[in-house]
């Protein structure tokens, strides 16, 4: 029974966890975290297992309630959705392990149970968005995830309600645009199913309603993925949200928008439509390139580590957007691989920021010095490795993202974009070495009696371990990238963009 229901399993596990946690943890609050970990572990196991099933026997279709597709809701487990769900569920598992102490430190105790319930709800939404084959169902999950996320942001520090409100407004507008787009499509085609629409659209033609629908949907996903200049909600939300929220949102949240964009552009409308009929892919690539430069330059000017990472995320989402916008196989491979790579890097970096906050009481760049590094040598080492990966040095994952994206730009003869990618890696070097220099070279502050603060106060094992696991994965996944790309990712490429490596 389980095998046939596998596509629906991951979102349902999270959904049930979201319902069970408030009930079960009513008496014993500590149970909330345990249940959340259990759910995330189960979902991660299911999604990794799904990858192997997809590799073995191709795409799975699951009909909810047994209703056949155009009418009923269909879940599709193909190589792309299997990969993305595995990435987000594994990342969520690692971050949730880390979250135990930061949530305990940052939130009042009565909020712990609802907090974990909301995390589960958000993850359920994200999984649903990735797995559904139905545009309206996608909207439902988009709203579930967003509403949960508003709550998760708003429980942060003093400024977080404002950030959450801002995200609420902008996010609602994004969701609204998407829904309007879906409405236009439905009126003109009579279908909400992605596969069905793909078959119908060529017959419908490129009427103005269809073009408007496409533009609205791209706009909606653009806001969700913080594509420049629709990123306004992101910096405050990442900065003021609790550590656990920002380390879940940064590696996972924006990627969901990117995934939606990828689905709509290449799996429903098709390469020809989005590059020739309506050159939206080109628009996306130019916006992404602008976002890469903007995010990197803004990141240099930040004093708060989390805020620097937030702007860096805008730039990194730009990489993904650029890969999508290039609309060739190499660019798409780069974009999808970067979903994984950036997820790992950014999760690691946000966990480092969380460790600093908990142990040093702050994560302000200007206040970091070699004293902080001596107190937290492993956390600092993890930061350095993740920073080198962000710069794109081999054999870390960052290098390989850069490699595929560079191949994609050269394939299109887009020299400007190639220059942007290369320049961005130097800009990354500037703002990450700014932190590394402080951590390793700036003499430690001395207290009034002229002594340095003594002793190691490295983060607790439950925080350090996830950080180090992510840091180590940057090298392991980097070296294994050919296995992932050749084994799995080349299979997701949409029709018209297949690739065979020599």
């Amino acid at each position, binding site marked *: 029974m389980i095998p046939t229901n596998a596509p629906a399993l991951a979102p349902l596990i999270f959904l049930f966890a979201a319902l069970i946690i408030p009930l079960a943890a009513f008496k014993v609050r500590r149970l909330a975290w345990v249940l959340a970990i259990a759910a995330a572990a189960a979902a991660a196991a299911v999604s990794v297992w799904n990858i192997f099933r997809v590799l073995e026997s191709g795409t799975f279709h699951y009909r909810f309630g047994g209703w056949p597709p155009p009418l009923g809701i269909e879940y599709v487990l193909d190589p792309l959705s299997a990969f993305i769900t595995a990435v987000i569920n594994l990342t969520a598992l690692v971050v949730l392990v880390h979250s135990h102490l930061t949530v305990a430190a940052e939130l009042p105790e009565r909020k712990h149970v609802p907090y974990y319930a909301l995390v589960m709800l958000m993850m359920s939404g994200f999984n649903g968005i990735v797995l559904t084959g139905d545009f309206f169902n996608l909207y439902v999950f988009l709203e579930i995830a967003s509403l949960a996320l508003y709550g998760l942001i708003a429980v942060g520090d003093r400024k977080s309600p404002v950030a959450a409100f801002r995200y609420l407004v902008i996010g609602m507008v994004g969701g609204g645009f998407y829904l309007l787009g879906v409405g236009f499509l439905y009126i003109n085609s009579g279908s909400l199913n992605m596969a069905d629409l793909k078959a119908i659209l060529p017959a419908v033609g490129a009427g103005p309603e269809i073009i408007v629908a496409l533009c609205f949907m791209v706009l909606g996903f653009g806001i969700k993925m913080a594509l420049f200049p629709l990123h306004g909600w992101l910096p405050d939300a990442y900065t003021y949200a609790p550590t656990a929220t920002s380390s879940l949102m940064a590696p996972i949240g924006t990627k969901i928008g990117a995934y939606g964009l990828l689905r709509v552009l290449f799996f429903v409308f098709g390469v020809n439509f989005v590059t020739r009929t309506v050159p939206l892919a080109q628009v996306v690539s130019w916006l992404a390139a602008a976002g890469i430069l903007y995010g990197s330059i803004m990141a240099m000017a930040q004093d708060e580590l989390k805020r620097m990472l937030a702007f860096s995320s805008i730039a990194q989402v730009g990489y993904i957007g650029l890969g999508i916008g290039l609309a060739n196989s190499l660019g798409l491979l780069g974009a999808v691989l970067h979903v994984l790579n950036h997820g790992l890097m950014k999760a690691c970096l946000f966990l480092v920021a969380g460790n600093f906050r908990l142990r040093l009481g702050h994560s302000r760049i200007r206040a970091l010095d070699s004293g902080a590094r001596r107190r937290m040598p492993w956390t600092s080492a993890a930061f350095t490795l993740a920073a080198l990966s962000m710069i794109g*040095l081999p054999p870390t994952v960052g*290098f390989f993202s850069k490699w595929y994206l*560079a191949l994609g730009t050269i394939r299109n003869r887009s020299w400007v974009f190639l220059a942007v990618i*290369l320049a961005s*890696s130097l800009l990354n*070097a500037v703002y990450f070495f700014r932190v590394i*220099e402080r951590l390793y*070279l700036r003499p430690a502050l001395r207290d009034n009696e002229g002594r340095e603060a003594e002793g190691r106060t490295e983060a607790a094992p439950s925080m350090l371990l996830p950080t180090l696991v992510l840091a180590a994965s940057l090298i392991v996944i980097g070296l294994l990238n050919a296995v992932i790309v050749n084994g799995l990712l080349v299979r997701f490429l949409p029709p018209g963009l297949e690739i065979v490596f020599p």
Partner: protein
Amino acid sequence: MSAPAAPSLLPLLAVLVSLAAVPLILLSSRSPRLRETWTLAAAAAKFGLVLALLPGALRGRIAVFDLFEIVPGVRLELRADPLGVLFALVASGLWILTSLYSIGYTRGLNEHKQTRYFAFFAVCLSATVGIAFAANLVTFILFYEILTIATYPLVIHKETPEAVSAGRKYLAFTLSAGVLLIAAAAWSFLLVGDLDFKPGGIFSGAALAGKTAVPLFLLFLGGVGVKSAVMPLHSWLPTAMVAPTPVSALLHAVAVVKAGVFGLVRVVAFVFGPDLLRRFHLDTVLIVFAVTTILVGSLLALRQDNLKRRLAYSTVSHLSYIILGTALLSGPALIGALLHLAFHATMKITLFFCAGAIYVRLHRENVSELNGIGKAMPWTMAAFTLGSLGLCGVPPLNGFLSKWFLGSAAVGTGRPLLAGVLILSGLLNAAYLLPIVQRSFFRRGSGLEGRREASPWMVVPLVLTAVLTLVLGLFPGTFHRLAGRVAAGIFGG
């Protein structure tokens, strides 16, 4: 001519042995003697492993170790071909002497953070041998970038504001070069779908148009030109002299800069191939850069009072000898270039060792302060004299040989003017090096009462490298045969 390949673990072990020493060095941070033992053991083992590869390379049996696919279509692969063995031999051999010297230097100055110093030194050597044995462009880039990053902690070792800003400059130059190299490799991959170095060029079979070949070559040149200090990309090198002297000696006169030049030889002879370069006159471009660098580098060296900076500009100039020899695109010229790659290393490392010994013993860094030190430090200054004469090209030292090959090849390829450039540069070498010798022996100094040689840890290595310049000048056989094999593989006969 493609040589038979033999699967062998040796290239991998040669790369990894110094990397394996890193955790041991880190774990023995509290016991300096143990830490130094690990470094010396790793250095000796590395040299032994490279030596074990030498007979095969000389006989034309190339040891290959194939690891796994690193990106689709390209494998992580090590290949100890004659060119790689030549470079690895120089780097690993001189590492032993540098390690001995480092021990004397760090003890003499009571340096801080010696664990970090020795650990990153070992990483650098792993990366260098990795560069030497890289079988394709992606593997090359992997080690090239590791070398960039692993050198940074050594450049900023002193942690003074000056050192930190030198480190920034170093990173700005080398990381920019790295991204250009990545772009060039990616472009090449899309053009021919194969990045394995081949004698005669990856592109030899592909009909590249000029509008592809020229910008692609310039990208490559930007990528390897920074580490090989081609003007105007050289300015990081004199700045990086703020690093401890053993770092300047091995990395900024041998490993890092020669990795750049080595990369250039790979690009010219194993990626583009002579025919393609001639067709688009890219060899002339390279010659113009090299000649400019040789002459301007020498002239700038004349103006430096700081001894290490003077040596750095001298390095800039001598690296372009190798580039010039490569750009001439003939067998004898390439042999001259590769001999100079090896021989310049022994000469320049001697001079840097001497500069470090003087600094440790007398705390003097400027040429104008060196009057009369020959009497206090006779062995050091004798070695300095030998190294200087070698760089000027005086027979029978090894510098004469490589220059002779380069000069005669310049005449042989119909460019006698370039031989004139080499002679002029030889005179400039004499003009900026010999006055130091003259000052130290024939002028009266002050404040030298009771000053003696530096510790034997430092004097023995520098005397050995000086003797090496003489020995290699008299018996250049092995290097000549290796270089001859490389040249034969590319130019035939």
